[in-house]
């Protein structure tokens, strides 16, 4: 895509800034990006005009529903993406098994919910049940995350970069298979407690499911808490210090190992919450449920700028919205929504590898 600096050096002598021809002064990447965005907008207008001409425009309530759906997905992606970003910021590795941690959180929440349903506890104490379900999901995920770090990643911290990555892929498949074998084939259905059923009707006859509203609010609260934790506590400062420079942080008396464990724990807690949310949102869970949300959340993290916490949140919401709205806007079948996420990832990596909010990364981080 871009003119390779190495080849252009070979072909022509290095010219002074003023002598450079006009075509080497143009930022071609920006031009291509602009043309691409323009084409995208034209396509959207064309599709919507065609639909309007055929009298088949989507009603506003449909768009509102899709937007709320996108925000729900976005909240979940953002929570998962935060786990990727935190770990990547510190260890420079993709924790491929993060999606499986989400899945185990969903299972833990499901079993607690089922127990509460069976004993009739749900009927009398709905709020307590919800807290228990989320608590169980987060606790199990946290333990999984810490265990994973201890068993699979810590011994490999000094190894070549390909090695922990392959381990992470192996761990991801291993956890997926483990859950399939342990929890078995039956479909597990999340029964929503009464307070999460039904929908809120907003002005303009727009119905938003209560589950969705709940997920959006809960995920935003968790993000705010995380942001506060990282920016305003001692532990958070230590985390940022380790992310910036491990050796210097160690010299300043920070226990790097401890901070890494805490980072995995926090990321996994968020993942557990996201798993329970996914359970309530999709109402069904299975052993492969974590994989694609995991990959997409990574996309969200890259979109916002990996290693950047507000970036992960923003990326999550952008991805969720483009997945929910994209098919209707661009007039493509909804089966292609997974393609949107991956295309977005490739485009971001071509045009702005540091992400929307990310700063220029050094060579060792990119």
């Amino acid at each position: 895509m871009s003119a390779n600096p190495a080849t252009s050096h070979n072909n022509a002598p290095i010219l002074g800034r003023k002598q450079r021809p006009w075509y080497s002064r143009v930022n071609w990447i920006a031009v291509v990006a602009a043309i691409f965005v323009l084409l995208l907008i034209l396509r959207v207008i064309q599709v919507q005009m065609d639909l309007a001409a055929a009298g088949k425009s989507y009603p506003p309530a449909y768009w509102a529903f899709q937007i709320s759906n996108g925000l729900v997905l976005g909240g979940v992606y953002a929570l998962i993406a935060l786990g990727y970003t935190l770990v990547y910021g510190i260890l420079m590795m993709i924790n491929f098994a993060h999606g499986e941690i989400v899945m185990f959180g969903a299972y833990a929440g499901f079993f607690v919910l089922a127990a509460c349903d069976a004993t009739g506890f749900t009927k009398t104490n709905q709020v307590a049940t919800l807290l228990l379900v989320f608590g169980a999901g987060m606790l199990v995920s946290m333990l999984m995350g810490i265990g994973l770090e201890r068993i699979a990643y810590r011994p490999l911290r000094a190894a070549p970069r390909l090695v922990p990555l392959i381990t992470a892929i192996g761990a991801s498949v291993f956890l997926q298979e483990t859950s399939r074998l342990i929890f078995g084939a039956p479909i597990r259905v999340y029964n929503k407690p009464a307070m999460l059923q039904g929908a809120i009707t907003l002005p303009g006859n727009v119905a938003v499911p209560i589950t969705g509203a709940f997920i959006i609010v809960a995920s935003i609260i968790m993000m705010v808490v995380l942001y506060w934790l990282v920016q305003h506590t001692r532990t958070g400062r230590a985390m940022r210090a380790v992310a910036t420079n491990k050796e210097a942080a160690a010299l300043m008396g920070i226990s790097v190992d401890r901070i890494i464990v805490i980072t995995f724990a926090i990321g996994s807690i968020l993942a557990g919450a996201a798993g329970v949310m996914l359970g309530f949102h999709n109402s069904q869970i299975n052993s492969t449920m974590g994989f694609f949300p995991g990959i997409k959340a990574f996309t969200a993290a890259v979109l916002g700028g990996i290693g950047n916490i507000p970036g992960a949140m923003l990326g999550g919401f952008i991805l969720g919205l483009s997945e929910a709205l994209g098919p209707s806007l661009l007039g493509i079948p909804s089966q292609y929504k997974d393609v949107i996420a991956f295309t977005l990832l490739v485009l971001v990596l071509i045009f702005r590898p540091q992400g929307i909010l990310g700063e220029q990364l050094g060579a060792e981080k990119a």
Partner: protein
Amino acid sequence: MRSAIRTGLVSGFVLLFFVLIGVYTTFEQLTLSGLWLTIKGATASEIAAQVPSMTNPQFSRIVTAVSAIIIGFLAARRAPRAGAMFARAVGATALAGAMMGLFLVIVDALYAAGFNVAFVFEKVKPETVQALLFDQPPLIGAAIWVILMAAFGVIGALLTLGWNALQKRRRPAEASRASETTTRRVQTGALIAAGLFLFLAPLFIGVYWNQVLGSIGLYVLLGLGLNIVVGFAGLLDLGYVGFFAIGAYTMAVLTSPNYPFGWTFWLALPVAMIMAAIAGTLLGIPVLRLRGDYLAIVTLGFGEIIRIILKFNPYTGGPQGVLNVAAPTFTIPIIGYTVEFNSSTPFWYLIFFTCIIVAFIALRLNDSRTGRAWTAMREDEDASEAMGVNTTRAKLLAFGTGAFFAGLAGAIYASRQQHIFPDDFTLLISINTLALIIIGGLGSIPGVIIGSVVLIGLPEVLRPVSDYRLLAYSALLVVMMLVRPEGLIPSARRKLEFHEREPELEIIESN
């Protein structure tokens, strides 16, 4: 003593894990006669008809005994004296047995109290617990576990003693290295014998094993291609199945009578390979600037995009795929005899010779100027660029060549299967291929072959327990990375890479 406790705890958890994933119940379906029938290539229903009662607790007992011996062996390994050895081995195994016993007692009590444990842990049914408790009351059953495990731990300790004695005796002999030419000769002889065996194999193995052999061969092809990308050039490509799919679909669309082309296999083959290579190079362009981790995700996404497009695109038949892919015919030159590819035997020969050719090409590529550029790039991208390696070219070449071979494998696959479906091309194939080249040894061509035989062939022998195939692969992948990252048959360079530090350390220590 602390290490013994740790070994005991860890092995206890492993045993519990085995119970949870149902190893004990599943292995009961493994019988010697059933195994023999599987090896002879009988289908599952034939086996069920001939071996009426497939339950046999012996295998699960053997699993338990063997694991206990291994635990004892591991726990006693580092002990200083024989007495400590026995103490550690017995301690560790008894601890693991006690954990197992405690678990069984708890589960039994839960069932007695009316909790349905199987709702959560599907494989832990009341009858499983009863069988694991040796049909005794829970406390007695648990005691039997502790005693039995400790008894096998003694055997483990004895093994350690024997092992240590062997090691002591062997050490002086090691100094005189066997002459290298002899080993080389033995290796060449083994290679020729194996080749001859594989060449003649279809004549005496059944239809079923012929099929398996073909699958192994196709995975060898895929592995050789991916080995170029991951092993030689160090670019982790998880979307490899995408190129396999492109090759297969190109072959299918060009030769199937449902499409207007109606080409022959031999005409479509190069087109399929070139299409895959073009796709590989195109994928290479956006990811040129990315390293390791990003590359893995982007390529994974690319593989999924290809599968989704094939699945929801009416031109490629949607989820129904493409049917009636043409099989090749081949006229043997001088004799003029025409071979119809209507059984797995001619396909096996096609795959066999293709493997040999591709392995030869890969071998020569690795030693070529490009191959050296790949190695340099893998070791240190910046340094190689400074040394004048055109990394853009090297990366695109690696992606293109890898994809070219994947396209070849895909084209043969489509023709051999006759019908292809988009869900044949899931991420699983990429992961299988990656696992086999890593377990065999990254960058090593014999490693690819051994890896395919171990990972694709061996599970066919153990078909009754095929449910655990992926679990075992992934566990192997992780353990391999932790214990022996260079693989079973490492390439010479990798071996040095992963152990480059050790000789230095020895020198420092000796000083």
